[in-house]
């Protein structure tokens, strides 16, 4: 297969950046989107040009490092799929592909398609944790958790922090990500002691990073590779109200 690529190139955070067109040939249907870019980069390296920088790590859809805006969709056109798990057979041979980095004030571009997502780290530092005593590991089954709570918490915990929700939101709101983290810990007994401070601090940290506000358009739940839904955002709002109303 071959593709006409239009890729955002930007030397560094200060550079203005622009689109550059490339052609790639000899792509097999079984290649992932990132492997297609690897082919392009090998080609560029042989020609002595600077390869296209893009973020990736596990390449099996579990780490949240990859993330590209492909033809107007975060992580490409498929539902519940990360960029690394998107395969070229889902595109037409010869198709034109526009590849852009996540666009948000809180996610500045570092180079080409790589953005700085440390805003998410700072939100997590504000409350995305539980405090436990160090020492010998506690008995795993001593705290009983209702199956329903465990399931909901697990669903929320699958958020990989990729930032597709921010990338796709018309307001670059991070509330789907924050709601997943808040829901995950609020539902577990281990998260209960810090439940109120957590939601207040995380929302505050989110607002301080310059993300937009949520308009409930629902674009994030369509693009989230892990299927986090608006129900999670609703839970964040309930948690927030409860914490605010608590004396």
């Amino acid at each position, binding site marked *: 297969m071959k593709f006409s690529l*239009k890729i*955002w190139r930007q030397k560094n955070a200060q550079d203005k950046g622009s*689109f550059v067109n490339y052609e790639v040939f000899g792509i097999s249907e079984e290649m992932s989107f990132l492997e297609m870019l690897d082919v392009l980069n090998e080609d560029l390296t042989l020609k002595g040009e600077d390869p296209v920088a893009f973020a990736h790590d596990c390449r099996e859809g579990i780490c949240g490092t990859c993330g590209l*805006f492909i*033809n*107007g*969709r975060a992580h490409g*056109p498929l539902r519940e799929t990360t960029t690394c798990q998107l395969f070229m057979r889902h595109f037409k041979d010869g198709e034109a592909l*526009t590849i*852009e980095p996540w*666009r*948000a*004030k*809180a996610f500045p571009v570092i180079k080409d398609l790589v953005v700085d997502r440390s805003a998410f780290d700072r939100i997590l530092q504000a409350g995305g944790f539980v405090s436990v005593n160090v020492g010998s590991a506690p008995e795993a089954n001593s705290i009983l958790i209702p199956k329903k709570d465990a399931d909901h918490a697990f669903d929320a915990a699958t958020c990989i922090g990729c930032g597709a929700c921010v990338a*796709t939101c*018309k*307001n*670059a*709101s991070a*509330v789907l990500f924050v709601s997943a983290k808040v829901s995950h810990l609020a539902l577990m007994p281990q998260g209960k002691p810090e439940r109120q401070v957590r939601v207040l601090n995380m*929302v*505050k940290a*989110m*607002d301080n990073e*310059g*993300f*937009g*506000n*949520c*308009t*409930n*358009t*629902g*674009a994030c739940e*369509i*693009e989230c590779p892990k299927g986090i839904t*608006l*129900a999670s*955002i*609703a*839970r*964040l*709002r*309930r948690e*927030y*109200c409860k914490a*605010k109303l608590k004396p």
Partner: protein
Amino acid sequence: MRKIVIELSSVGKKFIMGFTGLFLCLFLVVHLGGNFLLLRHDNGAAFNAYSHFMETSWIIRIIEFVLLGVFVIHIVMAFILAKENRSARPIPYAVNKASENSSWFSRYMEITGGIIFIFLCVHLYNFLISQRFFHDYPSMYAAVKTIFHNPWYCAFYVICLVWVGLHLIHGFQSSFQSFGFRHPVFFPWIQRAGLLFVILIFSGFIFIPIYLYFAKSSTAVETSYFGQVSRIRDSHLKMVHKNVKIFSGSKGKS
């Protein structure tokens, strides 16, 4: 005040947006209820009595000020949210297929809201300012009849009301989400109820100007009077004032 707005979190702002938005929905129901009096074949007696009550009752005065406050909060908050949201993405995407993940009326709430704002100004000028403050017409019923006698006004109202409907198709259910109310069983029903609400309310609101435009005035005297007023009003407003004074002087205010 400034401090409160700055200290409000993104969650708090949406809560206020949802609360004021739902309050405005309630207002629309009451407003439509009153408007239905226009459909009675009594030459506006019931509608004028209702409008007289709205004009003189102190309870209604208090409610009107609450309503004004709610509108102002909703609109000011809309501007703050829109400004923050716009600055959150300084560089737009070259290609963005937003229609594949969200409805357009959810993405253009600022636009539909902005059109409602323009409509609101015209509407308040048409009735509240020109009738209640300046008494341009002998009665509120006369004001309604005169204004909807003009096909351009009729078209303008109908078109604007469609945008109010589009604002609410997203807005009604969105406000419940803003409160954190999203139950797997009940929420789809809220969405359906919202759609039904929009359809019922707006077929009601849109029906009235269209009906009044096509309805024949019930008496000959009335027809000639309105024909006269709309003609004069278009060319020289001053004459209308005089005309109205004569008219209301002879018949008394209804």
